[in-house]
């Protein structure tokens, strides 16, 4: 199947074309849904085939490149449309198509009756197409194509309900914000790409990385390349300081939030850093920056998540926080741990969003948790699967989140230091607390909505079965990455699978002395016990003694408002960047530069050309003799030139 890998990319494109071109004429929702989901399902099968084939190959032959055609060839730049099938791209591809397929199926139920049903599936398929290019591309240009493509799809899908209100503005404003913030990151990524081309003379992964291995460490150019690439990653993966777009991205349909803003697109930054591991490993300062930014993002996003009342907002901040963990892992050199968390996070966070979608669906688009309560008895399937996901993200063994999060925390401790571990573990406590605050407020206790007017109901099977599949994955997904101390001689299967890819980077990183297995188990036990306590405390507060919450809010009024308003980051950006730039643009760029200088020059040239045009056209008299005369004049002029030039 490896040589057919391009099918995994083309099938979603085909789905996009069919639904995009003919969708408005296909009146049957089922047909559209089956085309959309089917394309991704087939693509998943191709990925699966390629995966098993690669699994059967010896370790040193697991990196294959499938070259389709040369795309651009200009001077020294040679860019091919070629797909790289290796351990990393296979894992990412399986996540994207697998989880993507489940979410497509779920969407068939969720989007039922929407007036732009076909447009939704067309965009979703286009997104998968772009994402597959991002993951599978064997060079930076193709990666960038996918990078921009997913940004575009994200924009289109956030603003999908363009006629709806969202918070203080419209969904289009949220979409625009996401796009603009992403552009800032993309600019960094582009600069990084230019610098890579300048330094290595190529944009192919294999060329760049093999040359990077040969270069001595601490060349300052690595620092700049890594910094620029990381700026790109902070934009796409919503890290400090560019995380502000992700909460607003919740304006899109909930399955979109699950697919794009939780499971796949936002992890593109993690993928990119892992892919360029050798470059980052050669820039120790940036590695530290990545770790610190990741840690801070994890911590601050979790604190904001504690007080939000909108169910999707809590999940959005939780996503930012979990992405922070992934960057923490990358920053301390635990690349495979970061990718492992990408995978488990894709399972449980997609499940959380889809569960939330199921709730929102049955509550008629109400998203305020204060107006939920007691939904357990109405929606048993959603409830059970949601609790599974919440336990997984809280890091309760033996669910998937436990293994991936604990591996990150342990690596942070062993390669980073106690400080990293402490903040990370405390964030894990907060995660457990706000997740179970959400579960308790939504599903348990007494209903806080008007039971006469609102009749919650369980979602149809097409929505609950995807939830169950994801729940199973959230439970067992962690077993492929059981840490060495438990699994014994086999070691960590997931880490071993990815190890050949990260080996060059690991040799560049400094290695720390081994810590004892006892310490590892001790730290693990501390974080698990902490998480359990946090869960029980959340249940106690929000089920039995809600007054505690009220008292705490009163006691720390300032802190509470600070968190509720997300540290006023949006307002800060608005005041520092948006407003001044807006004013400058209006006063100078628009009124003077654009209107006077540019438009003046353009309009002037245009009217000059059209005056010339209207005069010259008059020689077209329609008289054939005159035409012949012009020909002769031309010939005479040429002969004259021939004679005098000899």
């Amino acid at each position, binding site marked *: 199947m490896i040589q057919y890998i391009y099918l995994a990319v083309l099938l979603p494109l085909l789905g996009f074309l069919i639904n995009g071109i003919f969708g408005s004429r296909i009146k049957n929702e089922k047909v559209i849904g089956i085309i959309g989901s089917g394309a991704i399902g087939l693509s998943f099968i191709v990925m699966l085939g390629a995966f098993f084939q690669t699994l059967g190959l010896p370790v040193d032959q697991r990196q294959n490149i499938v070259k389709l*055609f*040369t795309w651009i060839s200009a001077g020294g730049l040679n860019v091919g449309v070629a797909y790289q099938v290796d351990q990393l791209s296979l894992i990412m591809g399986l996540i994207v198509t697998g989880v993507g397929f489940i979410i497509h199926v779920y969407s068939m139920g969720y989007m039922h009756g929407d007036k732009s049903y076909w447009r939704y599936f067309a965009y979703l398929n286009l997104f998968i197409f772009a994402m597959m290019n991002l993951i599978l591309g064997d060079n930076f240009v193709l990666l960038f194509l996918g990078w921009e493509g997913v940004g575009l799809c994200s924009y289109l899908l956030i603003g999908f309900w363009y006629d709806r209100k969202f918070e203080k503005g419209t969904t289009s404003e949220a979409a625009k914000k996401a796009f603009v913030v992403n552009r800032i990151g993309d600019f960094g990524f582009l600069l990084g790409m230019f610098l890579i081309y300048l330094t290595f003379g190529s944009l192919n992964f294999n060329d760049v990385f093999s040359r990077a291995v040969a270069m001595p460490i601490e060349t300052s150019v690595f620092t700049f390349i890594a910094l620029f690439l990381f700026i790109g990653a902070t934009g796409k993966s919503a890290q400090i300081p560019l995380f502000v777009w992700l909460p607003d991205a919740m304006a899109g349909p909930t399955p979109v939030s699950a697919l794009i803003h939780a499971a796949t697109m936002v992890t593109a930054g993690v993928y990119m850093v892992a892919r360029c591991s050798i470059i980052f490993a050669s820039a120790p300062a940036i590695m530290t920056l990545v770790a610190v930014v990741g840690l801070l993002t994890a911590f601050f996003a979790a604190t904001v998540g504690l007080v939000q009342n909108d169910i999707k907002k809590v999940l959005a901040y939780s996503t930012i926080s979990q992405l922070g963990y992934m960057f923490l892992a990358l920053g301390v050199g635990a690349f495979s741990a970061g990718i492992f968390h990408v995978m488990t996070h894709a399972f449980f966070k997609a499940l959380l969003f889809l569960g939330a979608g199921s709730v929102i669906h049955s509550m008629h688009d109400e998203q305020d948790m204060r107006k939920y309560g007691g939904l357990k008895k109405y929606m048993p399937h959603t409830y059970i699967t949601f609790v599974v996901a919440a336990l997984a993200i809280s890091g309760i063994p033996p669910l998937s989140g436990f293994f991936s999060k604990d591996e990150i925390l342990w690596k942070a401790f062993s390669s980073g230091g106690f400080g990293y571990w402490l903040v990370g573990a405390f964030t894990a406590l907060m995660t457990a607390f706000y997740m179970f605050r959400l579960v308790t407020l939504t599903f348990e206790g007494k209903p806080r909505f008007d039971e006469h007017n609102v009749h919650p109901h369980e979602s149809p099977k097409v929505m609950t079965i995807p939830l169950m599949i994801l729940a199973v994955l959230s439970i067992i997904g962690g077993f492929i990455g059981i840490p060495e101390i438990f699994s014994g001689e086999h070691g960590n299967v997931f880490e071993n699978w990815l190890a050949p890819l990260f080996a060059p980077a690991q040799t560049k990183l400094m290695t720390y002395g081994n810590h004892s297995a006892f310490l590892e188990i001790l730290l693990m036990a501390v974080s698990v016990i902490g998480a359990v306590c946090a869960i029980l405390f959340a249940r106690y507060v929000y089920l039995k003694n809600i007054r505690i919450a009220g008292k705490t809010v009163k006691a720390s009024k300032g802190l509470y408002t600070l968190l509720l308003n997300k540290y006023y980051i949006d307002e800060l950006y608005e005041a520092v960047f948006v407003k001044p730039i807006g004013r400058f643009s209006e006063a100078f760029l628009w009124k003077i530069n654009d209107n006077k200088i540019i438009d003046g020059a353009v309009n002037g040239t245009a009217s000059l*050309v059209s005056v010339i*045009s209207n005069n010259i056209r008059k020689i077209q008299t329609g008289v054939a003799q*005159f035409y*012949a005369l012009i*020909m002769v004049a*031309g010939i005479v002029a040429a002969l004259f*030139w*021939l004679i005098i030039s000899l």
Partner: protein
Amino acid sequence: MNEFYYIIPFIILAAGILISLVIEMYFTSSEKILPWFSILTFLASGFSALFLVNNVKVVFENMLMSGGNVNFFIFIFNLGAALVTLLSIDYIKKYHTYYGEYYILLMSSVLGMSLMAGAKDLIVIFMGLEIMSVCFYALAGINRNKLKANEASLKYFLLGSFATGFLVYGMALVYGSMQNTSLEYLFLNFTKFNTNILFLAGLLFILFGLSFKIAAFPFHMWVPDVYQGSATTVSALMSTGGKAAAFSAIIVSFASVLTVVNTNVFAPYFGAIAVFSMLFGSIVAIAQTDIKRMMAYSSIAHAGYMTIGLASGNSYGVSGIIFYLAAYTFMNIGAFGIISIVEGKNDTNLTIKSYAGLANKKPILAGLLAIIMFSLAGLPPFAGFFGKYYIFIAAVKAKLTWLAIVGVISSAISVYFYIRIIVLMYFKESEEDFVIENSNTGLLSVIIAVLFVILLGIAPNSVINLISYFAK
């Protein structure tokens, strides 16, 4: 191998013409049979050319060449003609002007073009050119009840004969100075003669004669009148196949100039033709109100861009021209195809304003035309962009950067009138209300053309590699 094996594409065409004559004579329903038969012939000839593309061989006493770029040209001519035939089916129905000879003339003109591409002797060029031209003169006036068509046909014939006179005179001068008409001989002995003024004047005259067919300044005056007066489908073929055939003849006649270094004494002439054609075409197109006239001026401008490739005088230029011609063939057939679909009976809906609001009326047509206009304007990722790109690269490599800059400026000017169509289609309300008849075969033809425009734009390198392999 028998020499006839190498000229199978020619034989298929010639046999097809003879059989069509019989069909036209004996079948009353020839209107239904002939187009499909000629499409079959075109495809058979075109694909046999592609099949034989690796057998490069000079046959029949150094008269004809087959294989390589010659076959590539033949493939393009045939594919283009097949698409034009597909367009013609509904177009002819719309006008109720079926004449049996229409399709036969189309096929004969393609045979003439193929001869020009394969010529290895001046005489063969002349023969091919005349076969093609005579067919075009007749085709331009095929709608004999239409006054404008008669005018176009007559004007084309008069000026065409005038230009052919120069071509033959040039051939006579070349023959007089080197005692031979073989192009191979000319190629090998070029440096021996290139100070002989009669020889150079002869070659220049050949260039003038062919420049008439490529619609380059100052031999372009017929173009707007003829494109406008002729049937739209005929204009489609004249602007693509006719132009490509004349370019192929220039490329073989000036082979030594274009492949041997430091012999490009013609660079100033090519350069002047290129600059004037580009600027004149782009600037005057802006003032046009009739879409076919606009396309005519656009055709002049494109002839200018391609002439930059001749001025560069290197193999990049030659492969650039061939790529450009392939791209231009599909773009222009697509554009004229849509014009022929939108056009109503009796020459209505041919103004640019008729395209206002087309996106609401016919979203698919509007989308296709938008792609073609973007491509003609030279915007990526469509074929037109890479055509210009390769030509400009060739100019830069030949140290003619100024020519590339003029080309870019002219492109920028031309964006205005191409994009104006898109603006009209998508952002303006329709002023006049008219019904556009559906044309399934026409639409199919345009879609195929647009697919090629996209394909050449996405994977230009694979095509250019193929061409450059033979251009050496």
